[in-house]
């Protein structure tokens, strides 16, 4: 086999996929994005949504059951249900499983997506799109720290991605939020960061409204990279 074929036919690491599904659902439950008692979609649908095989999904659900984060009931009206934990999202515990290199790479990926989405949003936004972004900024200004702020932060970036008119960039934004969003939001929510983060959010929306494509991209990229730099600092201080 030549090099390209070796890459194409390399075994897909199933352990990594199971781990990714477990981490995604664990974070969503810890952040309250999935709520106590909420029923998960059927195994076939959930596997299809996540883009993994049902075998992978079942392994992940088993791990979540063992952690007590979901419970599965059999029979009519059965299915998997979320059991929200009492403990809150713990940034340092979550950081412990990531190396500085992994954080940097996640940041590079997210900055590329967020920057491209913001640039296209500046090129393609109509007044209704900008109004949606402004409404999120206003709600964020009124929100206190905590889970509510995290949800609005996620929504603002989702709205920017959607304003790009690209389904692929929006889905990638959703995927990256599931993967790194909880870490970024936890850093954003630190008391000494809030002012700067608010200014960055306003800067992205201002640039989109002004149809300034380059500025929108630059601010959106540095918004991600600033947060990731802080995460790496914190990780290396362990």
């Amino acid at each position: 086999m030549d090099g390209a074929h070796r890459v194409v036919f390399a075994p897909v690491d199933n352990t990594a996929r199971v781990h990714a599904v477990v981490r995604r659902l664990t974070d969503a439950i810890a952040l309250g994005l999935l709520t106590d008692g909420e029923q998960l979609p059927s195994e076939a649908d959930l596997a299809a949504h996540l883009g993994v095989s049902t075998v992978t999904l079942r392994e992940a659900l088993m791990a979540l059951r063992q952690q007590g984060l979901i419970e599965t009931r059999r029979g009519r009206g059965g299915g998997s249900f979320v059991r929200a934990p009492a403990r809150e999202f713990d940034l340092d515990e979550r950081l412990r499983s990531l190396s500085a290199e992994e954080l940097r790479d996640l940041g590079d990926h997210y900055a590329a997506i967020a920057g491209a989405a913001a640039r296209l949003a500046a090129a393609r936004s109509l007044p209704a799109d900008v109004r949606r972004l402004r409404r999120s900024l206003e709600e964020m200004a009124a929100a206190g720290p905590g889970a509510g702020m995290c949800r609005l932060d996620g929504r603002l970036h989702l709205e920017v991605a959607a304003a790009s008119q690209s389904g692929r960039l929006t889905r990638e934004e959703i995927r990256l939020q599931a993967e790194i969003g909880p870490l970024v939001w936890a850093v954003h929510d630190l008391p000494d960061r809030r002012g700067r983060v608010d200014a960055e959010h306003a800067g992205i929306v201002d640039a989109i409204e002004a149809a300034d494509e380059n500025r929108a991209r630059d601010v959106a990229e540095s918004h991600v990279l600033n947060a990731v730099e802080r995460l790496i600092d914190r990780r290396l201080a362990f």
Partner: protein
Amino acid sequence: MPAEPPAVGAAAAHVRATLDGVFTDVARVRDAAARCLADVRATGRAPVRADLAALRPLLQARLGPFVCGLGFIAAPRLLADAAWYLEWWQTGPAGRPSQLLRDLNPESSALYDYTRWEWFTGPEGGAEKTVCGPYVDYLCSDEYVLTLSAPVHAAGTFVGVAAADVFARTFENEVVPALRRIPAPAFVVNAPGRVMASNTASWPPGAVYRDVPGYAAKRCGDFSLSVVTAG
């Protein structure tokens, strides 16, 4: 002003007929939802989520290659057991109809408030037919879609919205042949100025069009959409 190429009128008529076809399904959902809610009211109690399950056979039957999402979106506080609710069905990843299960709890979701979307505000404000998009629908499908919606009334009161989703690519496949018969760059643009389908790469779907000198716009019947042709 040069004479309008003959194919422009035909393209505008085709866009109108295409949308009218989808609105036939929307009207079915509207009538069924109104009937369902009136039946519940007649028993003297407030409607709950489970009452809307009566719509499921209709919704599942009308989903198909053209309509990829269909349902009823309740006005806030209509239902006794949920502040926000969508009885919404879409073509699932496995190809079968599947129900959208979204967290619409204000305590845990920032996306619950669907009443600011144009497909809701249009019918709520009295418009009989609202065509919204194309837009990236991150509430339901994460796809680039059009949403067509109509108000549902029960006992003279606005109680919610009947709506259908069509993938932007499905709409494009349907109308581009008619656009290609126009011997000039031409595209369909929605009321706010978003290109919906086009016969030229200079104006791809999703691009923003603002009046350009020398371009002529032809309305698509009673819809606030136009076929724009370069002069």
